[in-house]
């Protein structure tokens, strides 16, 4: 579950702002210049890491220490730069979507098509764990089918820009695409299955009986400067919170990279150990980490012979099935429905794990 969606520095808000709706040529120019500098620096990171570790520090190429340091010096700025850029862009994109708009759009949608739309909207609609309950009530009140609601609730934390960009940065676009694709598929299918099971009676009674007021919608008029502000807020908020996890994760990754033997994990988490997939899922449920913290660990495990399916299953279980979220959802769902939710999503993750261990 994504932890961060709160907000920015006090100063920014307390200062307030006089806002205009138009973007100026100067701002566009500055943006392009910034992007150019970003790209130039990004391209220098790998040569710099070699220079730093092997020339400047004089470490021996291929030595444990050298490998570990070079890995850390290359990976940390790389991941932080990617993260900053993408969080900024996604922050801007998110300003086009609100929970109100998503709810209105999904209201009365049929199953199947509704599940697909809900999972996709889960990626771009701003969402934080603490707004899960009001959002759920709103969806029920607006007659969004239960299964469609679940597709949204599964996709929103699991398929997020931070997970995808970190996988891309550390493991390449193929792993990122597999994660994105299977994450969406699990959200769509699990939601559809839950819808088919007709479990509406397992929503807490007070939610059903609630005679909520008419949904209040306050439309904001946002101009481009506001959207750029949203992007900056997202960077300050998310990057400001997760950088420590990213560095810690890469640090662990670096140690494993340099010091743990190549096939260390193969016997425990390798392809032949079929039981490792269910174990990975079960172990992942009580663990709670955001995507930023888990991806570097995933990278290290993969690098040491763990099978991709097993590692993906572990990662998805940690992010998508988390105890704190269950506790929050318990306020609106009866325990049986939470059990079904864990069962259905867990099965989807298991299936994904086995599938990729089989084909890759």
């Amino acid at each position, binding site marked *: 579950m994504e932890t961060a969606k709160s907000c920015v520095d006090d100063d920014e*808000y307390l200062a*307030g702002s006089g806002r205009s709706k138009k973007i100026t040529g100067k701002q566009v120019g500055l943006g392009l210049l910034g992007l150019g500098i970003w790209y130039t620096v990004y391209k220098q990171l790998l040569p710099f890491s070699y220079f730093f570790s092997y020339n400047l520090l004089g470490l021996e190429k291929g030595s444990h220490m050298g490998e570990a340091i070079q890995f850390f010096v290359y990976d940390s700025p790389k991941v932080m730069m990617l993260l900053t850029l993408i969080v900024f862009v996604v922050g801007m994109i998110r300003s086009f979507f609100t929970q109100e708009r998503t709810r209105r759009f999904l209201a009365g949608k049929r199953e199947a098509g509704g599940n697909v739309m809900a999972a996709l909207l889960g990626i771009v609609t*701003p969402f*934080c764990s603490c707004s899960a309950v009001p959002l759920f009530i709103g969806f029920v009140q607006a007659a969004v089918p239960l299964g469609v609601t679940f597709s949204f609730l599964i996709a929103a934390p699991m398929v997020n820009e931070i997970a995808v960009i970190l996988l891309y940065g550390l493991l390449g676009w193929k792993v990122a695409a597999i994660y994105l694709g299977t994450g969406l598929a699990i959200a769509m299918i699990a939601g559809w299955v839950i819808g088919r099971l007709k479990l509406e009676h397992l929503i807490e009674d007070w939610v059903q009986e609630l*005679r909520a007021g008419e949904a*209040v919608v*306050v439309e904001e008029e946002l101009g481009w400067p506001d959207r750029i502000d949203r992007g900056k807020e997202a960077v300050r908020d998310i990057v400001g919170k997760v950088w420590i996890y990213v560095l810690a994760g890469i640090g662990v990754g670096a140690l494993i990279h340099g010091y743990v033997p190549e096939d260390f994990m193969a016997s425990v988490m390798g392809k032949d150990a079929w039981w490792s997939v269910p174990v990975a899922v079960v172990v992942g449920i009580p663990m709670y980490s955001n995507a930023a913290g888990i991806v570097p660990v995933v990278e290290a495990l993969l690098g040491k012979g763990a099978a991709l399916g097993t590692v993906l299953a572990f990662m998805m279980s940690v992010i998508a099935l988390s105890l704190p979220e269950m506790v929050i959802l318990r306020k609106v769902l009866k325990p049986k429905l939470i059990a079904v939710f864990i069962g259905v999503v867990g099965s989807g993750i298991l299936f994904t794990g086995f599938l990729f261990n089989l084909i890759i």
Partner: protein
Amino acid sequence: MEIKVCGPGCASCEKTEKIVVAAVAAKGVEATISKVTDFQEIAQLGIFSTPAVIIDGEVKCVGNVPKQADVEAWLSQ
């Protein structure tokens, strides 16, 4: 003036409350500020995403943290 800040108590909600308090102080208006944290109560107000700010029964913002300048403008209305 009666101001309600709706939210279960996450970071955004607390920030919103701080901003409202600061705006009230800056404008020097008389207002009672209360927090609504119960999900049921929030839903009954017709609010399905948090944080939200209600001033004298009128919902001013839903689902995002307002800027202080905006809150001050609402207080002047």
